[in-house]
């Protein structure tokens, strides 16, 4: 593994972005080419990632190199530098692997779209930014990537910018993320103030040694880590900043799969895993874990009542992200990251299948208008089923392994967290199979017009699905054996020793998890396999869930409206119109008045000007000659 390899890995998507972004106009007539350029760029990265990964797996030393200094100042320096260790390698594989398949899928999915080349340009740019995020060897690089993926997320959510809801969703995502990013920035500032550097290695070493400036006393690291966690909350859609993610489903479905399920939203998890040393020292993992588990439960309950396929998947994503935070929060960093990996595959898969369904159903998302799709779209059905089984924790599929590990670790930390997690697992299995039964089984409720051209998606779309289904199902096997598994060994060097020793019988935990998962599936089967779901929510609790706990409305009333009113009446009417405009207009009026007097001098007659000039010269000369 060399520096050059990493540069190629990083730059390939940038090249793809530049080609599609700058020359898209000429590529318009040939959209396939544009799509393949995008996919090829990511393929190059994928190959490089595999090379990097295998060399690391073969025992090569992690790479931590500085390319060149970026900002140098008195006593500090920020560098463009890379760090490739086990954690980064895993992330690289996920990003480029899932990313490549989604690019290929998009070639078919986006067929005939107006902004075809623009789409691939954005997508490449996203991959580039995400790679920077995971490759950087300091917080500043990470932040650059962090903001870069935020930008791409905004651009892609609002991809169909002529649709009001899409632009609104984009803005919402951007603003909500901004809150989180602000926290991240503050966290970064804190770290910089304390350490005078943002390099991971330096910070971690000195944090362990305790040689840093205690700018907030003993709480320095606590404050820093919590602020960083605020960033993670925003980016990874946790309570209370999760509201943007469900709305983000306005973007093209492959985007939801890549950005809002597999990669970007997991950046927060990655960041905490990366900063594991700090969280261990500051002992703020509990906060993370609690936020995570509450989010997991909360989102899962909302998912129970939704009817929009993509929204269900979105809430499911929020919920699963909560699991990951539980994992990293209780100190089982490897487990959290492992769940990140498995989730990336199966959730990406499910989003893509949802896209496939949409493709067939003429962009219909309401599952009440579906049903019985199994016979029409067998491949889609089977691949979705694989994903659903995986997420539901069906024994020996990937979700089973990763979720079980997290729950196991959680038990060692707090039994309450474990309990909520277990309930959430049940809910997860339930809503996921509710989705399957309503969509793919039962009688068809499809509009006759749509039904007439209901079809399986083209090969360019179902092939990635099929390929993705395999790791979705099997990647969990890497975690076979819990804390002694291959995955844990591979990532051991990166993370500090877990201080909560996993206790209890591993097999017992597995059995309990399996039973809970299967129970959820069974419960869903009893309720939804035959019945047409009711349209109207019944009962107060159901209505509460269907309206997502009214969180959006509460935010609107508590935050948005006050800010809006404050801006309107105080800032605009009073400060801007009254004071600032008053000053500006006053100055202008004064100048205008003076100018009105002076303009009489400007007659437009050149010679009058010259006469004044000569007068000046005469006076000046006279003064110079006779009075000095």
């Amino acid at each position, binding site marked *: 593994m060399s520096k050059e390899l990493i540069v190629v890995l990083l730059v390939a998507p940038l090249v793809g972005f530049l080609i599609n972004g700058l020359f898209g106009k000429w590529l318009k007539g040939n959209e396939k080419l544009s799509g393949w350029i995008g996919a090829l760029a990511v393929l190059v990265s994928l190959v490089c990632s595999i090379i990097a990964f295998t060399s690391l797996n073969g025992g090569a030393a992690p790479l931590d190199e500085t390319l060149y200094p970026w900002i140098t100042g008195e006593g500090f320096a920020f560098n463009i530098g890379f760090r490739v260790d086990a954690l980064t390698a895993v992330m690289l594989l996920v990003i480029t692997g899932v990313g490549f398949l989604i690019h290929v899928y998009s070639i078919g999915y986006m067929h005939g779209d107006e902004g075809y080349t623009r789409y691939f340009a954005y997508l490449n740019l996203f991959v580039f930014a995400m790679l920077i995020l995971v490759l950087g060897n300091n917080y500043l690089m990470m932040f650059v990537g962090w903001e870069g993926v935020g930008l791409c997320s905004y651009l892609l959510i609002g991809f169909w910018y002529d649709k009001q809801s899409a632009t609104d969703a984009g803005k919402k995502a951007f603003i909500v993320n901004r809150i989180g990013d602000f926290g991240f920035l503050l966290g970064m500032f804190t770290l910089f103030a304390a350490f005078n550097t943002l390099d991971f290695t330096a910070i971690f070493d000195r944090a362990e040694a305790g040689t840093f400036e205690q700018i907030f006393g003993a709480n320095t690291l606590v404050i820093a880590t919590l602020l960083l966690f605020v960033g993670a909350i925003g980016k990874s859609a946790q309570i209370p900043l999760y509201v943007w993610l469900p709305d983000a489903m306005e973007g093209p479905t492959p985007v939801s799969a890549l950005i809002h399920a597999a990669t970007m939203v997991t950046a927060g998890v990655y960041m905490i895993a990366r900063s594991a040393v700090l969280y261990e020292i500051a002992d703020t993992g509990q906060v993370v874990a609690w936020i995570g588990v509450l989010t997991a439960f909360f989102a899962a309950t909302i998912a129970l009542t939704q009817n929009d396929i993509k929204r269900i998947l979105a809430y499911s994503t929020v919920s699963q992200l909560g699991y990951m935070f539980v994992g990293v929060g209780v100190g089982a960093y490897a487990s959290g990251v492992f769940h990140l990996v498995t989730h990336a595959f199966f959730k990406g898969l499910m989003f893509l299948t949802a896209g496939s369904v949409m493709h067939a159903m003429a962009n219909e998302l309401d599952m009440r208008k579906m049903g019985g799709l199994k016979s029409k779209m067998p491949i889609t059905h089977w691949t979705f089923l694989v994903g659903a089984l995986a997420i539901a924790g069906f024994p020996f599929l990937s979700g089973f392994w990763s979720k079980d590990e997290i729950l196991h670790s959680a038990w060692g930390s707090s039994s309450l967290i474990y309990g909520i997690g277990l309930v959430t697992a049940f809910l997860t299995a339930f809503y996921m199979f509710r989705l399957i039964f309503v969509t793919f089984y039962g009688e068809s409720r499809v509009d006759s017009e749509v039904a007439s051209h209901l079809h399986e998606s083209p090969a360019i779309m179902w092939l990635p699905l099929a390929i993705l289904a395999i790791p979705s199902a099997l990647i969990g096997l890497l975690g076979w054996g819990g804390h002694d598994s291959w995955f844990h060994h591979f990532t051991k060097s990166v993370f500090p020793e877990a201080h909560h020793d996993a206790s209890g019988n591993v097999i017992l935990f597995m059995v309990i998890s399996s039973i809970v998962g299967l129970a959820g599936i069974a419960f869903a089967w009893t309720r939804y396999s035959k019945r047409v779901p009711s349209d109207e929510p019944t009962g107060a609790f159901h209505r509460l869930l269907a309206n997502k706990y009214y969180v959006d409305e509460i935010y609107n009333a508590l935050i948005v409206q006050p800010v809006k009113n404050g801006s309107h009446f105080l800032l605009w009417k009073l400060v801007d119109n009254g004071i600032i405009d008053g000053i500006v207009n006053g100055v202008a009026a004064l100048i205008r008045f003076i100018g009105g007097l002076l303009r009489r001098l400007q007659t437009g007659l050149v*010679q009058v000007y010259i006469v004044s000039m000569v007068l000046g010269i*005469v006076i000046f000369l*006279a003064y110079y000659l006779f009075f000095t």
Partner: protein
Amino acid sequence: MNPEQILFILFGAVSLIGAIAVISFRHPIYSALSLIVTFFAQAGLFVLLGAHFVAAVQVIVYAGAIMVLFLFVIMLLNLGTLSAKGAMSRKLKGFAVILGILLAIEGVYIAVNAINDPAVASAETATESVNTTTYNIGELLFNEYLLPFEVTSLILLAALIGVIVLVKRGNQEEN
């Protein structure tokens, strides 16, 4: 009175009369001709001062090229005497003449007092008779003043392009 003095008075008088004629004639053609006369008298003064090269260039550039351009434009635009429209007020004209007289007094004062400047005075006595040859000028021009010389060429180029742009655009607007 030696010949130099006679010639100086002759050329000086011609150039002054020519200059006054420039600003007195109503018709620009006559002004231009008077200006040519002035330039010639000046060339004569340059010869008196031993600056033969400058005198020749004066005639070639001013009389031979610049004034021909003036005549060309006057004839091309058929510029006659102007109408009285928008005439400058008499007061301003009178004021301008007074200013001119003041300026002349100051100029003469400077000229007379320049000799008192020690740098000028010391040099004057020593080298009254030195004639600068074309060779000297060339040597200075291409050694000490090489950069200004090159800059001048840029100025000329800029003027060339500027004129073409001005005139071309005017034509395009018409079309």
